């Protein structure tokens, strides 16, 4: 039996949750003793290699690529965790949900005060993923087993959650770790 495999990804997030994961500091040495990392921005592996035990997802789904990646994670991960407020609620990117997509595009590419776009064309390059009509939290796109709230969840929260999951015990977060003001 190999070590449990962990994959992480950032969809429509700011990588703040991943930064928070790095904030576990020297405990990262213990972590690599405990698990093997599959696809993750931390090791720069770009594709999932096969079945994974735990998938950590930062950010919500704002475009088609986010959906694609999330679905791949769902397919390969035994347990999927939404990490942070963007994955759970859509977060800051979801502020655009109040504005129809058509108006977002107009402001960003056509009419905005700082826009220079003489051709008056909305970018259509295939490299730019198509935006969804609104930003979706992950659990509205695929089934998600756990939610770890916070913006970002603190390093201690992430550390506690991972360890609880790996040791098969129930997660108990002290009040200080889930209080945000």
């Amino acid at each position, binding site marked *: 039996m190999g070590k449990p495999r962990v994959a992480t990804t950032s969809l429509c997030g700011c990588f703040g949750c991943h930064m928070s994961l790095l904030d576990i500091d020297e405990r990262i040495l213990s972590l690599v003793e405990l698990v093997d990392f599959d696809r993750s921005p931390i090791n720069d592996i770009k594709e999932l290699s096969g079945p994974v035990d735990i998938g950590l997802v930062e950010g919500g789904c704002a475009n*088609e*690529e986010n*959906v*694609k990646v999330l679905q791949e994670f*769902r397919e390969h991960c035994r347990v999927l965790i939404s990490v942070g407020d963007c994955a759970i609620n859509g977060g800051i990117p979801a502020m655009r949900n109040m504005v*129809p*997509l*058509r108006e977002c*595009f107009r402001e960003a590419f056509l009419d905005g005060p700082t826009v220079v776009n003489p051709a008056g064309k*909305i*970018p*259509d390059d*295939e490299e730019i*993923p*198509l*935006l*969804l*009509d*609104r930003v*979706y939290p992950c*659990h*509205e*796109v*695929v*089934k998600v087993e756990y939610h770890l709230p916070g913006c970002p969840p603190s390093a201690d929260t992430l550390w506690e959650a991972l360890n609880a999951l790996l040791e098969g015990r129930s997660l108990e977060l002290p009040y200080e770790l889930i209080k945000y003001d």
Partner: protein
Amino acid sequence: MGATREEVVKVICQDYGNDRSRLLDIARDVREQLGCVDSPAVDCIAEVLSIPRVEIESLVSFYSFLYSEPQGQVQIRICNDVPDMMKGADRIASELEEELGIQVGETTPDGKFSLEYASCIGLSDQAPSALVNDLMVPRLGAGTARRGVQILKERGELKELDKLLIRDYGDGNNAHDLVRSACSNNIRKAGEVILAEMRRGAGLEKALAMSPVEVIREIKTSRLRGRGGAGFPTGMKWEFTRAADGDRRYLVCNADEGEPGTFKDRVILTERPDLLFEGMTIGGYAIGAEDGLVYLRAEYAYLREFLEHALAKRRELGLLGENVCGKEGFHFDIRIQMGAGAYICGEETALISSCEGLRGDPKNRPPFPAQHGYLGKPTSVNNVETLCCVARILQRGSGWFSAIGSPGSTGTKLLSISGDCMRPGVYEVPFGIRLSEVFAMCDAQDPMAAQVGGPSGKMVGEADFDRTICFDDLATGGSLMVFGRDRDVLEIASQFMQFFVHESCGYCTPCRVGNVLLKERLDKILGGHGQPTDLEYLQRLGESIKMASRCGLGQTSPNPVLSTLESFRSAYEERIRDADDVEESGFDLQSALSTAQTLTGRKSVHFED
């Protein structure tokens, strides 16, 4: 040349003594005379009354009968409550959309017509129906709405709509010169308390022969409870109001019946206005008030002139005014306060806010209105039907009254019955009547469910048909909707939730946000994407909203979901998908991407099919 905007506003404000507490009336009049309360009109009002703009703007944005932008000369509001939708209100809407070339919510470019939905205009027994300006247009058949609009289109002058749109007036006082309405009373069963005849003054004279304390004792002995729904003992409410400190007291009649499916107050106001005014006068005497207010819902504006006339008649007869009925020192008069279209104003503290010229936001309790009500003075707010009971109790005695009905719920109750039955309309029945008896009375064949008490009440199924209508079992403010076998209870619950989402005043988060979430999750199940965990989610969220909301709206708004979860759980379970079906989330990629595909003119590269 007509008067300038400034002049018009100035005159209107003067009519109300430049009194800030009459802002709702001022805004209503401005809307009527200038077409809308736009930004320059707001400036004018703010200047004349010396109040900040924002107070006027927040008022205008709150009420659905006030507008900050010009509306069509003819405003068509199609009633979209559940009984109306069952009878094809949506077909009427699309017929009119086609005829007018606009969508619901829009105004024609020539400024002649606006089209919108209204929550419930009080004609559920004559569905589908619409409100055209102040004119009630019941029983819209296929093609009649379209023909009506065609007639109006041909006319240059859009005055006296009733002559153009209405062929026959309804029964009773609906045909009265000051009403001239096509509404029918549909009184199917008249009882002895509310719908029996009564001579003007018969109850009042007896009351004035007693002391106010004796009147209150008489009401307490009758065990009369408020007919609005909550069922608070009227005598006790009056005792509290009388005992509270204050140099003035007020008696307010709640004629804002907005609970979808309720229309019995419309019938009382049409046929027994004197009984109501008599009850109010007795109430004024009992609590020591000199001023009575009738808060009349905007949808019933067509009754205003008729009611004013009835009040004038009573003044003439000495039944209102100074030294009422010759009783030295007892002065009492009644003013009609028009509402402006807000369900929440049926809640008593919101109603008081509205009377004070504010947004219809509920107030914190305590202090209760009995201590700190209208303009900060002790106030008793009573339902139309309750006050009618009062007049009758004084006329015929508390012993007579309490012998009717059941021990905990004395007297009769007016039911407004609509939906799948052959004889919808108003029934005056003794409390304690079984639901099955009600079905037999209104000729409901093989009903599957009944919504007792409107959306905020309870949806009950066959297992509950032997239960009784009274405060201790199935309580209702009057609304009773019958649903046949071919109806979808989840669909109905979803429509009720839409109603609450629309009517939430937005003050507390559990109600403003929670109701939206409830509806979304319910619609997910309706769309066939429900998972077993969704049922628990609905239950928990519903309970949270009830527990954490400040007023009656939020405390009852999850009922459509919670009561169907209880009575019709199988309707949910049939639609739930297998728990292992993890792929299924209800996410619709195609529709999520379609706008971006249109805007960029290209297809998805990540998802090719």
